């Protein structure tokens, strides 16, 4: 920690330099503007905003030594460190709250919450690859897309329903993960990240350009919602003579039922994902992931095949994206390539990093936080990415290990 004072002349020099750089940067953006006057375009100069920017930067830089000296004493509040048992308890509490509130919440809120739950599944799935096994995957959205398109296409061409397609979508996404993993997992770190990034982009482009199959940019619409054990949930049955859900139950038809049903299904999916990932972590496979993340050479020296172990993490992670994808398609009734951009991959990865790699409760909380915040702050929609970036930067400074760092359940030797 340096506490020595910076000489005044140095500070002044810094401030002037910063002000000049600001001027260079702001003049083309703020100072000069093209405007249409009649039929000609005129270059107008606005010097005031430039002066304000330059002045602000100059003063800020000048005052920086004072501010920095004070900042040494400022500590951000510490987040609670939770033990693995507390984290498990937290998950149960979260699930219980999730089960009850939609019956009291508004229709819009439940709908948004459903989306949040899809992101919880995605976050937990990517957590297997990134958090448990330590493999950076920047193209995770590809598996999400494969799941969504699998359901959409199978429904459109073969008329299969949601429940039949859900396992197929998971299997397809897992297969895609496996096939991609084979050549790719020889790479490490940055190289792996770049190849997966490319894969994500290729998948989206394919969806965009294979117009005959995927409908191109328009996508596929009219995807049916899930049924309740084969019973449709609609105002009237699509097949002559069949009964719909509200007729059987004897309730007045309401669109809200479908929203709540979808929400509860999403919650079920989250529960399933939580259960499976929790168990996985404690199987020999889960331990091998952990070991591989720590020391690949030691793993190899003990006879663990690194490619197989990585492949399993990649495949299982992809499988959950497939599940989430099929569900997403059913909720939206529409899939198009727009939903599967790189930004989605980045968002899901942020969920994992923000929550704390390997921590299931952390990831679940981060997913809810990152999907709900933009909904609450609609006025700031334009600044969404800006705020998002700011949050990430703050997190890296404040708590690089994530909101709730993973606390593994260790195998204990009873004594």
């Amino acid at each position: 920690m340096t506490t020595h004072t910076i000489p005044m002349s140095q500070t002044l020099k810094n401030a002037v330099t910063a002000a000049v750089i600001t001027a260079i940067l702001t003049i083309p953006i703020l100072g000069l503007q093209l405007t249409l006057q009649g039929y000609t375009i005129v270059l107008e100069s606005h010097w005031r905003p430039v002066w304000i920017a330059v002045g602000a930067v100059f003063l800020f830089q000048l005052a920086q030594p004072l501010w920095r000296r004070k900042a040494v004493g400022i500590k951000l509040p510490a987040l609670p460190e939770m033990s693995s048992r507390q984290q498990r308890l937290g998950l149960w509490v979260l699930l219980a709250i999730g089960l009850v509130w939609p019956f009291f919440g508004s229709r819009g809120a439940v709908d948004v919450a459903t989306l949040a739950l899809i992101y919880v599944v995605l976050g937990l799935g990517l957590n297997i690859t990134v958090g448990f096994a330590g493999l950076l995957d920047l193209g995770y959205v590809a598996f999400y897309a494969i799941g969504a398109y699998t359901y959409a296409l199978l429904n459109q061409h073969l008329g299969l329903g949601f429940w039949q397609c859900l396992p197929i979508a998971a299997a397809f996404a897992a297969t895609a993960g496996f096939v991609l993993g084979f050549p790719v997992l020889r790479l490490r770190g940055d190289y792996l990240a770049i190849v997966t990034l490319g894969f994500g982009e290729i998948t989206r482009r394919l969806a965009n350009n294979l117009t005959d199959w995927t409908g191109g940019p328009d996508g596929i619409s009219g995807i049916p919602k899930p049924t309740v054990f084969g019973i449709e949930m609609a105002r009237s049955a699509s097949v002559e003579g069949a009964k719909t859900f509200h007729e059987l139950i004897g309730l007045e038809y309401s669109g809200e039922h479908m929203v709540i049903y979808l929400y509860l299904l999403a919650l079920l999916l989250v529960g399933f994902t939580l259960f499976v990932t929790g168990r996985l972590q404690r199987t020999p496979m889960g331990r091998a992931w952990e070991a591989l993340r720590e020391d690949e050479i030691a793993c190899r020296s003990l006879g663990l095949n690194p490619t197989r172990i990585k492949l399993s993490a990649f495949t299982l992670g992809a499988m959950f994206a497939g599940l989430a994808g099929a569900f997403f398609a059913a909720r939206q009734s529409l899939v198009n390539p727009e939903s599967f951009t790189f930004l989605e991959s980045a968002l899901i990865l942020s969920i994992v990093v923000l929550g704390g790699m390997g921590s299931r409760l952390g990831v679940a909380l981060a997913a809810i936080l990152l999907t709900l915040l933009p909904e609450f702050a609609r006025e700031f929609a334009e600044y969404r990415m800006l705020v998002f970036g700011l949050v990430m930067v703050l997190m890296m400074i404040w708590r690089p290990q994530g909101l709730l760092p993973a606390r593994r359940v260790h195998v204990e030797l009873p004594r």
Partner: protein
Amino acid sequence: MSTTALLEVSGLQMRFGGLLAVDGVEFAVARNEIFAIIGPNGAGKTTVFNCVGGFYRPTAGSVVLDGHAITGLPSHRVAHHGIVRTFQNIRLFKQLTVVENLLVAQHRQVKTNLLHGLLATPSYRRAEREALERAAQWLDRMGLSDVANREAGTLSYGHQRRLEIARCMITGPRLLMLDEPAAGLNPQEKIELQQLIDRLRHEFGIAVLLIEHDMSLVMGVSDRILVMEHGRPIVTGKPEEVRNDPRVIKAYLGED
């Protein structure tokens, strides 16, 4: 000799670009033999280990284990043949507990299917319990029972060394390769290490390939010794032969 040899290395050469790190190395390790490789720093001892263990693919020569050519196999496949090693700068899974380190090492023995693990079927639970029991036995044998549930990275240096050996032994190897196992140990721990190596050899019938700088340990425990200098073998023989060989003395102490 050659009929009973467990490991036969012949004409081993390892070239890194223009550097010939190991050249013309030949030796055979018999079953149940403790064989040491010594030599000044940079003589290529660890490179020999890496070639035998599959971490490097040798540029020439062959490595044969019990009649099977294992030259150039990837390291995890070499481990399946029964050759495991420790590392000069210990490579434990530091954030896993001591027991978990031993569980990971049993990955090959514990044959469980992923679905069984997810559903925690009785057969899976039994396999896990057995793995845990084997781990407990090894911890007991190595005197590590007290620290069983600690994270491996928090152990003392001597304990870490022993855990690394236990982690190798639990895989049921035929040849144990120890890369400078006495480095950083105090005299008392060195004596214990020597007894341990001897005991492992007798109780489990393994052969040991040892790289070590500590001469009293090497001379005390080894059946035969290979001396290397500048990547080439200079002498192979029993400890007393090696000790008095003028070439060895020259390699260590220089001319005159």
